[in-house]
């Protein structure tokens, strides 16, 4: 769309980072105006701008930890967030603000009172509503450039192809071992990596599992014999442990999507905020 490129070149302005370096910027107002005038998708406008070395200003503070190329790549990625409760709600918000272009939100549940202590999209207005519908609405208010697909279902060994779609990565934000096991089986078949996390009280664990890995069995032992739920049935799920773990999941997902070799892959991070212990354990090999 040469017309779009000409418009972008005209709309871009020079801005200065806090460190004094100058970059070409596209404001959200200008991007929105172009989307309306040219009947083009915002995500397409942002990706085209990035390809021209113009940074959509909403991603300005992602630089320079992310490069323009990284940002462009993330906008072209699809992340499937499986479970949109405690972990998944915060993961969805972070990936939306970060600019991961397409999000698939999978959760068949509705918000209930006990979700209010930690779940990002649970509030007095969304109680009783579908979690994915509430999430989509709020994500659109944060970053309308994203393509968000909502799937109000539980992922199973049968329906996974329709739910994972063409996702590049899955984020395990589930709350039972059975559901995690089904997701792992689906990711193996789809040949995509998954970032898996679980929380109990103020403790948590996170791993990056690739299709060829031993995966969850390295964490829970014999999966057929493992209990479906863990210490969280007694300890609950504290919001700051949940948000921390959600942040770690996003960090690992981004590094995995960008092909960086600094991920947790092959290891497991566990933490206990009660005494501030953080350990990275080598799982295999």
């Amino acid at each position: 769309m040469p017309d779009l490129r000409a418009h972008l070149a005209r709309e871009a302005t020079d801005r200065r980072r806090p460190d004094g370096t100058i970059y070409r910027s596209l404001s959200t107002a200008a991007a929105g105006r172009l989307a309306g005038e040219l009947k083009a998708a915002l995500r397409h406008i942002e990706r085209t701008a990035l390809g021209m070395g113009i940074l959509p200003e909403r991603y300005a503070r992602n630089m320079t930890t992310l490069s323009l190329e990284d940002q462009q790549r993330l906008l072209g990625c699809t992340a499937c967030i499986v479970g949109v409760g405690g972990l998944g709600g915060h993961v969805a918000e972070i990936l939306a603000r970060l600019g991961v272009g397409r999000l698939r939100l999978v959760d068949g549940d509705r918000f209930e009172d006990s979700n209010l202590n930690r779940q990002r999209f649970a509030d007095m207005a969304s109680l009783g509503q579908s979690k994915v519908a509430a999430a989509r609405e709020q994500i659109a208010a944060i970053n309308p450039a994203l393509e968000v697909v909502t799937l109000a279902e539980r992922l199973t060994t049968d329906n996974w192809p329709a739910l994972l779609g063409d996702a590049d990565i899955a984020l395990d934000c589930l709350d039972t071992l059975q559901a995690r096991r089904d997701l792992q089986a689906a990711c193996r078949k789809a040949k995509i990596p998954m970032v898996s996390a679980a929380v109990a009280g103020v403790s948590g664990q996170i791993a990056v599992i690739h299709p060829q890995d031993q995966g969850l069995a390295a964490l829970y032992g014999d999966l057929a014999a493992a209990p479906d739920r863990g210490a969280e049935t007694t300890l609950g799920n504290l919001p700051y442990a949940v948000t921390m773990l959600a942040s770690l999941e996003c960090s690992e997902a981004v590094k995995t999507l960008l092909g960086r070799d600094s991920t947790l892959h092959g290891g497991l991070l566990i933490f206990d905020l009660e005494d501030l212990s953080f350990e990275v354990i080598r799982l295999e090999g």
Partner: protein
Amino acid sequence: MAFHITIKLFATLRPYAPADADHYAVAPGTTVADVVRKLDIPVKDAKLIFINNIRRELDTPLQDGDRLGIFPPVGGG
């Protein structure tokens, strides 16, 4: 001749930690399972065992200076 290990228990297992967890005496040949039994840790909760930050099993023998960690199954989201 006894030697010493350190023991670190997480989440629901924390209350089972002995007072001398930082300098816990064990006899040669002692395995993780022996320590789990001695401390009354429910075996079903001793799923994720690591020694010096490498995942190990219940039957792994302990060595002088080992750092033993045990994390229970967690599944919340």
